[in-house]
């Protein structure tokens, strides 16, 4: 990927994206599974759409596997909490895949209150020749049955069906912002604004509370949990980030309730940068372990930071995503954009990190070469199979030909959710209600 960032050889191949723009189709989460064969998206209407990568065919070697729709299902429905007279949105906040253990695929999807485990399986045979019912399913008159037969399995058109296998409900008073599957593949955690619960996949009627930062007196509340994730290899370790820009690493072996952290990551504030918005822009919107488990990456409003787990007092790398917005914070506060929660992702080898910005821009940073690139996910500015052109935002007075000025940025076009294939250079970028998939150009 380093080479690609330098020479900018990133091609784009578009999948069939949504052609309508109703609010329900706004994509709210994107996630590759562990092999990269499947890509799941969740939207504001509670639906999950899973794409599957085509098998590479020998006939068309230049066409690397494209992603086509594999399955679509309604994961969550809108609900009404009668006790509080509040609506519960059906928007899918997060999807996380389980590692594949048999022919079926399993994923967790969550809205604000309920986590569900879905099984996605293929059916390409069906039984024919029942005794008690005919082919249409109607019951046969028992008196008309004169002989017994054994049903046989006959091939049928491939059908992909999704069934909810578990529903984990009623465990969260506040809005769930993260779910994370543990490396033991037996448990997972769900985190809301003030609490984190640990679940066993087999048990839906109870969960363990492992973090609780709710103050006894809600008047004293000044900090909330913004994201949480398990360590990729150590099943006892997890991290959670806060709205004050801190990350806590906890070890579940120390105590049942992990209110006391094992490590506390916080960068001292730069006094010259202090303003009324300092706290808001320091709020961490996403935290991700590297694949190696050695580093964590955090995203706050203006930067992405990489931390070494062994050093708590400051990050080892800081990347400016869109520092030109620093002088616009008041406007962004007024129109609420300052509260946008951007996600960040690692590539498979932990050498490149990616995050989104405004105007359908997204940014990639190469940790080794220290080069970065800004790209745009939009139909008007790139054709299918065309190499993406790097974009640039001009901050000074003179605007060059292809640059865009800060004041012309469209703040309604934000890229909050992106995903990177676990082993190849394929990325998925969600731009409002459109999904873009970009691949490396072959040779």
């Amino acid at each position, binding site marked *: 990927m380093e080479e690609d960032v330098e020479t900018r050889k990133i091609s784009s191949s578009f999948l069939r994206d949504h052609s309508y723009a109703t609010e329900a189709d706004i994509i709210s989460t994107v996630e590759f599974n562990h092999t990269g064969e499947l890509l799941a998206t969740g939207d504001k209407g509670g639906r999950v759409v899973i794409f599957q990568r085509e098998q590479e065919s020998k006939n068309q070697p230049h066409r690397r596997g494209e992603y086509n729709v594999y399955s679509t299902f309604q994961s969550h429905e809108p609900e009404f909490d009668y006790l509080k*007279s509040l609506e519960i949105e059906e928007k899918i906040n997060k999807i996380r895949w389980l590692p594949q253990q048999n022919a079926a695929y399993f994923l967790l999807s969550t809205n604000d209150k309920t986590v569900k485990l879905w099984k996605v399986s293929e059916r390409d045979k069906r039984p024919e020749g029942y005794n008690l019912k005919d082919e249409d399913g109607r019951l046969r008159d028992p008196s008309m049955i004169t002989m017994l037969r054994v049903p046989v399995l006959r091939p049928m058109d491939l059908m992909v069906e999704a069934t909810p296998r578990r529903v984990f409900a009623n465990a969260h008073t506040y809005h769930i912002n993260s779910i994370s599957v543990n490396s033991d593949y037996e448990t997972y955690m769900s985190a809301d604004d003030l609490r984190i619960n640990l679940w066993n996949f087999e048990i839906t009627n109870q969960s363990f509370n492992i973090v609780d930062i709710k103050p006894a007196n*809600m008047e004293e509340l000044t900090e*909330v949990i913004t994201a949480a994730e398990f360590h990729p290899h150590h099943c006892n370790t997890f991290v959670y980030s806060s*709205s004050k820009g801190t990350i806590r690493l906890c070890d579940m072996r120390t105590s049942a309730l992990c209110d006391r952290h094992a490590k506390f990551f916080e960068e001292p504030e730069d*006094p010259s940068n202090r*303003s009324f*918005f300092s706290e808001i822009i320091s709020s961490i919107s996403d935290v991700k372990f590297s694949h190696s488990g050695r580093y964590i990456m955090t995203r706050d409003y203006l930067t992405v930071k990489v931390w070494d787990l062994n050093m708590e007092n400051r990050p080892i790398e800081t990347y400016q995503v869109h520092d030109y917005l620093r002088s616009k914070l008041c406007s962004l506060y*007024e129109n*609420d954009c300052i509260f946008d929660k951007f996600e960040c992702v690692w590539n498979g080898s932990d050498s490149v990190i990616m995050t989104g910005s405004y105007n359908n821009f997204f940014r990639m940073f190469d940790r080794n070469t220290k080069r970065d690139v800004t790209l745009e996910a939009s139909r008007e500015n790139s054709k299918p199979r065309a190499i993406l052109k790097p974009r640039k935002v001009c901050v000074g007075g003179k605007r060059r030909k292809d640059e865009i000025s800060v004041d012309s940025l*469209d703040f309604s076009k934000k890229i909050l959710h992106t995903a990177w294939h676990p082993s190849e250079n394929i990325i998925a970028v969600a731009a409002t209600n459109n999904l873009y998939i970009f691949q490396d150009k072959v040779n």
Partner: protein
Amino acid sequence: MGEEEGLHQTQLLDTMFVRGLKRKCFDGEEDIEGTLAGIKAIPSYNLQRQSLLDMSLVKLQLCHMLVEPNLCRSVLIANTVRQIQEEMTQDGTWQMINTQSTGQASLDRLVSTDILCRSSREQAEGKHVPGYTTYNKDFEGDQAQDSSETMSTASSVQVPRNLQSNVWEMENPQENKGNFQKSLDQIFETLENKSPNSVEDLFSEVDNSYYDLDTMLTGMMSNSKMGHCDGLETFSSPTATASNSNCKSDLNELDHIVEILVES
């Protein structure tokens, strides 16, 4: 786009909230040529801060009206309000406003996070909340005090203030502001005393204008889910919208009141 308009309106404010320059009363003028017109165009630091405080309070008010407030956002806004209030207390500007209206100790005036973060539903369950009613008085006090200054400041500062005054203004601005506050006071007193008032008693005390305002605002929020800029701008035609407003939000508010009483 509401968001783009918001950018232009507060562009001047943006230049003042640039990094590191908290005390920008005089520093800001270095950016301009130094003409008299230039000095007049930049709002003073105190006015900017006041404007930010007002904007934040309005945001929190709006998030009260929403069905499920985003807790993270509420907490961050509340912390910003606290920060401003603490600075104003240290400045002495907070004391000034204090002595003008009621003369209470300054720390009591700090709005508690509790009020600012909880939904109106949870508020009803909670304890006595002195900060809320005094906040209302502050807001009106500021309005009265700064109205004369509003005229002479730059238009970009004026716009947010006008938006806020539209929030509270209907046909009879002064009357309705007072009625709104009185109704809230009565509701909270009822909760405090925990006396088993009947539903009818509560309703008979509450002025109808409370429901009108509330209906209008909840009607706003359910109609337009765009940025708050858009929501605030539609306040300019209250009567038209009141007629279109959701009956459901009326009932929701009544349900809230009933539930408050059932719990107490």
